[in-house]
């Protein structure tokens, strides 16, 4: 962006010659960059590598279950592989996925700022992510962890595997997450340009803000908990292990005090992405802006009060069970509000099914199932039967995979902005269909076997469940193929893709007012802020394959 303003109607200069990618070159210019966009891209690459690893572990788990007994690995290897799958996907992929990769890239631009409030802290958070990742993965070579990603005591304090490396990796990753959250909160409070009031912010920013609150308040509890665990394991100081005078259920309280809010760290940004996508691809103003914005904050707050619903069978008191069950249901209301508002946004819209929208609609389908099956688990009487079975596994995969669907949707939505290239719409939709289909085959099957009593984390299983497991594995392979297709056409687009216009989808939040890719400092002059959900200022231009500002005074 050279000198012009960025409201619709201004000329959009071509910044292909000078953008954030070409601003400086050389490895050093990336490693030491303070540019939020480059840091976002580095996060993205790291997270995609971690996703590949987590995906390989998932495929190994599913392949093992093709037969009821040993198929390709021993019981101990299986226990390590499912632990790695969970830990990698949660700590390295889903928690940082949307906030650290997508959020870092678009948050300042959407806000109309030149960068986040603390660019150096931002770079520091990336390197902490790298260090934490290396520590967590080093555990594979140092005696692979076999505790499950939940690290329940006293199993984790007595098993002879590299638990300390993994939990200290999680500790470092926690600081990475805290720094990102802190940065986002300060940025949103302090760097809004004139006119960008709280209620003019895109809903994605509300979602990131709500997420950041949880990151800041809940993550330290995880940090303290894993340090206590490491101290007990290394120095035999009794905290959780009853042999040493500790209380194992105390660990579960501490762990879920972080890890339940962490579920909302994972899902809230996804909901924020979906709010953007549904509105843009329906060409329609978002319905119920304030309800959606407040529901993000409500979820963030209520999410702190429900951790005990992971422990209904642990022996905590019936009174505690009752309170946690009641509070759990309160979270379902703001989630339902969002879904209804998305549908109302589509009403009388002009809906186009480009790849990001296909992911957004898939999200509503998948999150619908994930959310509704949560009712069975929040209900005391039914949870007793379903707890620790594949029903729970299926439920949280429907929710967490919903986040991955939103992440991939966001990746497709902002890909032209990040890379300056368009990908193949044809292959984009094919891949989305494969992932959607494979995902449902994999996990819907798991609901059925779970409600029949198939416990989770089982290496061997009884013959009765064989056909369910085999079908589930077939679904996993279909998903795997879908993700490979995505990797191929996105890589192809980097080299051969059509040049992306500034605004390929007709969005009106501020990132679409920048060129693709954006210039180094986002905005040369402070942008003028309008209603980011008012699309009337744009018209489609077939020649550039994107939207251009409608000339002032032109007919709609």
């Amino acid at each position, binding site marked *: 962006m050279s000198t012009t303003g960025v409201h619709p109607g201004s000329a959009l200069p071509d910044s292909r010659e000078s953008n954030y990618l070409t601003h400086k070159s050389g490895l050093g210019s990336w490693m030491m960059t303070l540019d939020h966009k480059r840091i976002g891209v580095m996060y993205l690459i790291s997270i995609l590598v971690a996703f590949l690893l987590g995906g390989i572990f998932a495929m190994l788990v599913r392949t093992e279950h093709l037969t009821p007994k040993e198929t390709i690995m021993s019981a*101990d290897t299986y*226990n390590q592989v499912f632990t790695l799958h969970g830990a990698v996907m949660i700590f390295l992929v889903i928690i940082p996925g949307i906030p650290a990769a997508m959020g870092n890239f678009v948050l300042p631009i959407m806000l109309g700022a030149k960068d986040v409030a603390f660019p150096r802290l931002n770079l520091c958070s990336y390197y902490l992510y790298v260090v934490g990742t290396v520590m967590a993965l080093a555990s594979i070579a140092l005696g692979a962890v*076999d505790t499950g990603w939940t690290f*329940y005591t*006293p*199993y984790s304090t*007595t098993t002879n595997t590299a638990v300390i490396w993994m939990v200290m990796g999680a500790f470092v990753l926690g600081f990475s997450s805290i720094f990102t959250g802190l940065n986002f909160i300060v940025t949103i409070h302090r760097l809004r340009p004139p006119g960008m009031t709280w209620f003019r912010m895109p809903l994605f920013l509300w979602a990131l803000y709500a997420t950041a609150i949880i990151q800041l308040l809940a993550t330290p509890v995880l940090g303290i908990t894993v340090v206590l665990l490491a101290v007990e394991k290394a120095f035999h100081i009794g905290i959780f292990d009853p*042999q040493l005078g*500790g*209380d*194992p259920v105390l660990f579960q309280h501490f762990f879920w005090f972080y890890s339940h809010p962490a579920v909302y760290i994972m899902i809230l940004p996804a909901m924020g992405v979906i709010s953007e996508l549904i509105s843009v691809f329906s*060409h*329609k*103003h978002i*319905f*119920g*802006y304030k*309800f959606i914005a407040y529901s993000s904050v409500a979820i963030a707050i209520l999410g702190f009060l429900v951790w005990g619903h992971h422990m209904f*069978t642990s*022996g905590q008191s*019936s009174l505690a069970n*009752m309170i946690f*069950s*009641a509070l759990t*249901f309160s979270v379902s*209301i703001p989630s*339902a*509000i969002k*879904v*209804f508002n998305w*549908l109302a946004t*589509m009403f*009388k*819209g*002009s*809906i*186009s*099914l480009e790849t990001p929208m296909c992911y957004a609609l898939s999200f*509503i389908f998948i999150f*619908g*199932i994930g959310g*509704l099956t949560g*009712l*069975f688990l*929040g*209900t*005391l*009487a*039914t*949870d007793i*039967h379903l*707890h*620790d079975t594949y029903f729970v596994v299926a439920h949280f995969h429907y929710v967490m995979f919903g986040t991955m669907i939103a992440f991939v949707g966001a990746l497709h939505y902002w890909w032209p902005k990040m890379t300056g290239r368009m990908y193949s719409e044809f292959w984009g939709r094919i891949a989305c269909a494969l992932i959607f289909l494979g995902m449902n085959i994999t996990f819907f099957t798991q609901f059925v076997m779970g*409600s029949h*009593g198939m*416990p*989770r984390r089982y290496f061997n*299983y*009884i013959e*009765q469940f064989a056909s369910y497991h085999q079908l589930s594995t077939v679904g996993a392979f279909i998903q795997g193929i879908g993700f490979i297709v995505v990797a191929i056409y996105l890589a192809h687009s980097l080299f051969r893709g059509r040049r992306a216009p500034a605004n390929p989808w007709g969005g009106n939040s501020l990132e679409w007012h920048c060129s693709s890719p954006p210039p180094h400092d986002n905005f040369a002059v402070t942008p003028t802020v309008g209603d980011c959900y008012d699309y009337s200022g744009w018209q489609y231009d077939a020649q550039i394959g994107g939207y251009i500002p409608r000339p002032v005074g032109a007919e709609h």
Partner: protein
Amino acid sequence: MNYWLAQTQGDFWLPPQASTVSAEVDWLFYFIYWLSVFFFVLIVGVMMYFIFRYRRQPGRRAEHTSHHNTLLELTWSGIPLLLVGFIFYTGFKSFMHMTVAPADAAEIKVEGQKWSWSFTYPNGYVDKDLHVPVDASIRLLLSSSDVIHSFYVPAFRVKKDAVPGRYNKAWFRATQPGEYLIFCAEYCGTQHSDMISKCVVHPPGEYEKWLQDASDFLSKMPPAEAGEKLYTTRGCRQCHSVDGTAGQGPSFKGIFDHPVALADGSQVVVDENYIRESILEPNKKVVGGYQAIMPTYKGRLKDEEIGAIIEYIKSLK
């Protein structure tokens, strides 16, 4: 290996009902299920209709509709709130039925250890399987000697964690004679998925007979045979084979009267005293190459029973 007992099928979603609370739990399950189906079909149906009806077409633009409607939004917040309020209340009520045992319930102690269950009957007899009379309330007192396990009988809709260092309680009243699987539902390591026992529900009058027969085994059987029974029922078998294959612990085959190397390099001859010591203080002299993971049997095996196990190990030439 009689682990893989075939379980009679229930319906598409749920296993057979075999306890007094099953019907109550299943009713609520299906209530939530149909409510979920209704809302899911509504949401996806409306979504599909909108995708088709308002698809982007040349010449057609998005129509302006209001950006919010407080009454509508309060309505679709309020109706779900009422519904989940009902679900919560019903779930809690049933949960209390599942939690509070009747006063006349007989008590059986359940102990989890890596990787087997043991059940102690009111007369002190210990078995690897749970035997109960039909139509009688049974209270379970659960604990664990190592890590957390979880006692789970799908057909009874009962699950409770067995936590080391504390007692948890659960109860059930079986309604159908037969055999049901008991799973461990809380991850506990290598053989977590093999930690399966049976719950045998006896027809009226047969439980007492079974208990009497089973309890007398020490006086009825030759010591080596009684030792074999203890070997299978008290958790030795999960880690110590009798055919020479290495498990989590050394095999018992041909071990008696032979020297073994300990972890610290010293040697010890496996005699009566070493076996006895290894049962009571298992982690004092661990054989080289194995981890110190065996729980102590101090206070859990009587002298007579230890003697029988020694005789059994002697017999494994």
